């Protein structure tokens, strides 16, 4: 292969005077983690509400949940980010639009909200499936004891359902983190973005991408190990959730 490898490039100062290329990548990694975690919190919050709506007996609630999920699932994430970033400010009243455009870190907020809502549809589907997989008698037993629907979900159905869907939620969390890379299209310089600029400044393509790849693998390992630990500490003795 006619490629000049240069692994010491990471310790050379990057243009811009803010440390080495390695520092640059670390900043990207940190931004990836921040964006991913913020988006995940949004995804969990909205996904839980919508997921519950899809399991309520009310037809209206079901249709709201259905429409929400279809809306966010049938457009590419990239297009959704463009809608939030370029289109939304133009559709709002002028002063609001101007204000939106002037927010510092707009790419960060757009990415967190846009990716969060995109992922919330998938969290909702997982949670609804988890709740639906519980025996019908559980809801009936809770109701028969006099718990309201809200209490039945809060104390009985959700705690069990979330335990059951822990494995798919782990992969959705990882997907959220991976999806932050799409935000380079709206100017978020996260890990992939930093690798890309390192490649443009230094021409050491493969070193830059290898480093980013290793960092993504590390994120994955940490998350998988962490979630497995969480799963084990929340496991119910004698109860098999992996059915």
């Amino acid at each position, binding site marked *: 292969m*006619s490629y000049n490898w240069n692994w010491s490039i990471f310790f050379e100062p990057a243009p811009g005077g803010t440390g080495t290329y390695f520092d640059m990548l670390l900043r990207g990694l940190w931004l990836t983690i921040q964006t991913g975690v913020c988006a995940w919190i949004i995804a969990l919050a909205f996904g839980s509400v919508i997921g519950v709506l899809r399991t309520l007996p009310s037809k209206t609630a079901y249709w709201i949940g259905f429409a929400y999920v279809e*809306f966010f699932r049938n*457009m590419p994430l990239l297009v959704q980010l*463009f809608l939030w970033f370029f289109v939304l400010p*133009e559709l709002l009243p002028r002063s609001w639009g101007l204000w939106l455009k002037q927010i510092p870190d707009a790419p960060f907020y757009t990415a967190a909200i846009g990716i969060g809502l995109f992922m919330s549809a998938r969290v909702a589907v997982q949670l609804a499936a988890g709740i639906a997989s519980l025996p019908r008698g559980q809801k009936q037993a809770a109701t028969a004891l006099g718990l309201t629907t809200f209490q039945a979900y809060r104390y009985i159905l959700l705690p069990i359902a979330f335990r059951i869907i822990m494995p798919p939620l782990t992969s959705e969390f990882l997907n959220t983190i991976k999806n932050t890379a799409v935000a380079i299209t709206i100017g978020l310089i996260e890990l992939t973005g930093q690798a890309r600029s390192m490649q443009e400044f230094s021409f050491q393509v493969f070193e830059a*991408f290898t480093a980013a790849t290793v960092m993504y693998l590390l994120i994955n390992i940490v998350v998988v190990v962490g979630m497995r630990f969480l799963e084990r500490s929340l496991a119910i003795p004698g109860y098999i959730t992996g059915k």
Partner: protein
Amino acid sequence: MFVNFDFDVIRRSLGYLFLDGMTFTLTLTALSALGGIVFGTLIALMRLSGFKLLGRIAGLYVDFMRSLPLVLVIFWFYFLVPYIGQWVTGASRPVNVGAFTSALVTFIMFEAAYFSEIMRAGIQSISKGQPAAANALGLTYAQTMRYVVLPQAFRNMLPVLLTQTIVLFQDTSLVYVLSMPDFLGAASKVAQRDGRLVEMYLFAAVVYFTISCAASFAVRRLQARISIVR
């Protein structure tokens, strides 16, 4: 609200958007799905073959691909494919393969990891008695797979494979990062040229939404039909 907007820009660029952009997107989607399923089946068979080393390699490949953002993989292959071309053809310099080939290789390699997991689940869902019965009739491993297991498994997982293909259709929009002329790329070019971001991106959203919705509706119908027959 829309008084300042010029939706005629859409009508004026329809030809470019669909004949060029959407054709690129759909071709890329179809070829990637085909290649991804073939390669994905191979990976799944490697994992289930019983050869430890082979299974390990296939498993590592799947885990590796699934740990990385698609955008990063697109960049990887964009720069890597010319070198692979050079290595394959023995040329003296990296070979310029063109944007489409590079994107196609990327999506086949990337989606194969996801397709293989679907295939694996589908194959494992066939009861152990089926391959045993085939073996008892004297069929070889390859024959058992080809004539008995895969046809049944494929039928079970067809809806999931199609759903994944819809995801792939949406994912192809990410070739935007390499400024390729797919549907979104085309829409974006018109948007930048005429300064009509709002109109073009809204239109792109509607088109993606309509196609994905119609496709997932069709998959749901198919799923209902398959589950009745069984």
